[in-house]
């Protein structure tokens, strides 16, 4: 199978969907200049021209509002937020308008907006360029949220998001942009709300999202022969594929949830809540969340890494959960 980088997979998804549907367009800062700061719209301008690839002033609130108004009147915007931290400048259009208008209007208006926002930590950029805000939007009724952790899902989930009639936040991870992976040729759509069992195992389930998926897989590798780890990547945080998660927990009886954002009020806590509510009888040990530190991200590289879940911390948690440490 051919290989693509995560970044090229994002570009390819947009090009395919724009070719498929005339009403799809891309808007955001620098998207029309040399493929954007992170080259996530590479080749899109050349193919579709400035009418459909719209570079904006630094005005997140206005261009997110524009996307909502355009979606209400027949278009399907893809909004690029250069860093997810910047979406906080646009919380009114995103949370008060996009997420609520389909409902408040009694279903008259669809809101087919895809927001692509890149996030993640580990690139030494300080507290305002390193947040993982997935919990904010998972907490907002009316929003769907996904976090592709592979090139194949970066393409597949984005295509599904663009075709969805409600607002979808696609959180891309910048530490993965240059990672090359196999991506099937031709039509490749990853349905929203479907988890991926990234590695099969029988002793403990690690539910891992975004970049934490890689760390969970590394932990599983490290524990091979000692503890058999099953890694489940939910891929979409809302709607959440509880069926796959519960099936895994039923098999292993033990569960760790891991993400890079802090544990407080986080998606990990929500997943644990649902496991307890819907699969309490499967549990042989209390569920554990391995998360980022409860701090704004510090700059100094050593401090930053110390604030993130690592393969070793996940492995230690796994040993603890099954009573080996």
């Amino acid at each position: 199978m051919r290989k693509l980088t995560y970044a090229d997979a994002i570009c390819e998804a947009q090009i395919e969907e724009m070719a498929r549907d005339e009403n799809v367009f891309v808007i955001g800062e620098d998207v029309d200049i040399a493929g954007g700061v992170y080259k996530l719209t590479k080749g899109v301008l050349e193919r579709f021209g400035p009418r459909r690839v719209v570079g904006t002033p630094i005005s997140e609130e206005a261009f997110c509002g524009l996307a909502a108004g355009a979606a209400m009147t027949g278009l399907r915007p893809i909004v690029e937020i250069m860093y997810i931290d910047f979406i906080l400048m646009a919380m009114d259009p995103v949370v008060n308008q996009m997420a609520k208008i389909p409902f408040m209007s009694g279903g008259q208006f669809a809101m087919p907006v895809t927001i692509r926002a890149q996030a993640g930590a580990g690139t030494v950029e300080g507290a305002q360029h390193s947040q993982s805000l997935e919990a904010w939007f998972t907490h907002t009724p009316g929003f769907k949220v996904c976090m592709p952790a592979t090139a194949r899902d970066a393409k597949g989930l984005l295509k599904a998001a663009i075709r969805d009639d409600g607002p979808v936040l696609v959180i891309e991870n910048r530490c993965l942009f240059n990672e090359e992976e196999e991506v099937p040729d031709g039509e490749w759509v990853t349905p929203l709300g479907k988890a991926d069992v990234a590695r099969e195992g029988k002793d403990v389930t690690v539910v891992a999202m975004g970049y934490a998926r890689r760390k969970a897989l590394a932990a599983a590798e490290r524990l091979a022969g000692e503890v058999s780890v099953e890694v489940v990547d939910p891929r979409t945080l809302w709607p959440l594929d509880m069926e796959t998660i519960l099936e895994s927990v039923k098999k292993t009886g033990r569960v760790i949830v891991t993400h890079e954002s802090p544990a407080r009020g986080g998606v990990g806590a929500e997943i644990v809540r649902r496991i307890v509510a819907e699969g309490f009888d499967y549990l042989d040990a209390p569920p554990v969340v391995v998360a980022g530190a409860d701090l704004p991200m510090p700059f100094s590289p050593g401090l930053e890494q110390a604030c993130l879940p690592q393969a070793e911390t996940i492995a230690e948690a796994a040993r603890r959960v099954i009573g080996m440490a």
Partner: protein
Amino acid sequence: MAAKRAGSKINSAADEAARVRMLRRMLSIRRFEEEVKRLYRAGGIKGAIHLYIGQEAVAAGACEALRPDDYVTSTHRPHGHCIAKVFDLKRTMAEMMGKASGLSGGFGGSMHQFCKEKGFLGGNGIVGGGMGLALGAAFSARYRKTDQVAVCFFSEGASNQGVIHECLNMAALWKLPVIYLCENNQYAATTPVGKSTCTKDIAPRAAAYGLPWAICDGNDVLDVYETTRTAVERARNGGGAAFIEAKTYRAEPHCGIIADGRDKAELALWKSAERDPIPRHEARLIAEGILTAEGARELRAEVERDIAEAVEFARRSPAPDPAKALAREGRP
């Protein structure tokens, strides 16, 4: 568009039917809201009610300058804009009561009346929340190669939100067919404009973005109509965005039936027949021979019947059934 002060003589292109229609729209809004106020006091309407009484000429005049397929975004004080653009008194009143037959099926209420069919992109509970939506509707019209225009109603209160700066810049930069129409009703909740705003007029700010602007008498429906028509025609023909400030007055308190601490003489002045937009326009129509006194009485009686029917329709309509309306397959 040149800056124009209130009180100048209006040479309007509106034909006689349009002039009478604007009176009817204003009367409908006024009587609708008086009924809302009565029903609110009686407990038939609940929630936050922001009345538009006193400002009717702005909605009626501006919407008369629009086509049915043009777009309007409104505010937390949306009844006037909704009636002027959509003109469905029954379903608007039903939405006020949270009924299933309401414009938004009971999911929106007073502040969230929507009508896709008539290009009404909704009231908005967030001050300034419609500014980006109007920008997007105008962007969309151009993208789809139609000649539709979007009008964004907002208040002098909203003019101090940061988003307007972003929107005016983008509207001007891309020459989008959008009209930002500021209803300067003198009060943001209870704060008078002089306490919130460093200049007497709002509209000249638009010049900083290279946008044409005008100030009109927001209590003169023909002045609002003409000013809006000029801006809309320009936008429809590719001339880009514009900014209008309509000077008007919110005759009722900010919200619900709260106490009004404003100066009594000020209130009396704005409610007088010389300032109130409805008697002003009615007297002009009679003076110009477009309407007889008898005709005016008939018109008022017709509006009275419309309102009574709307209230009756709303009252008789069932409330949404929670089991159906909130079920996964039933909800919007």
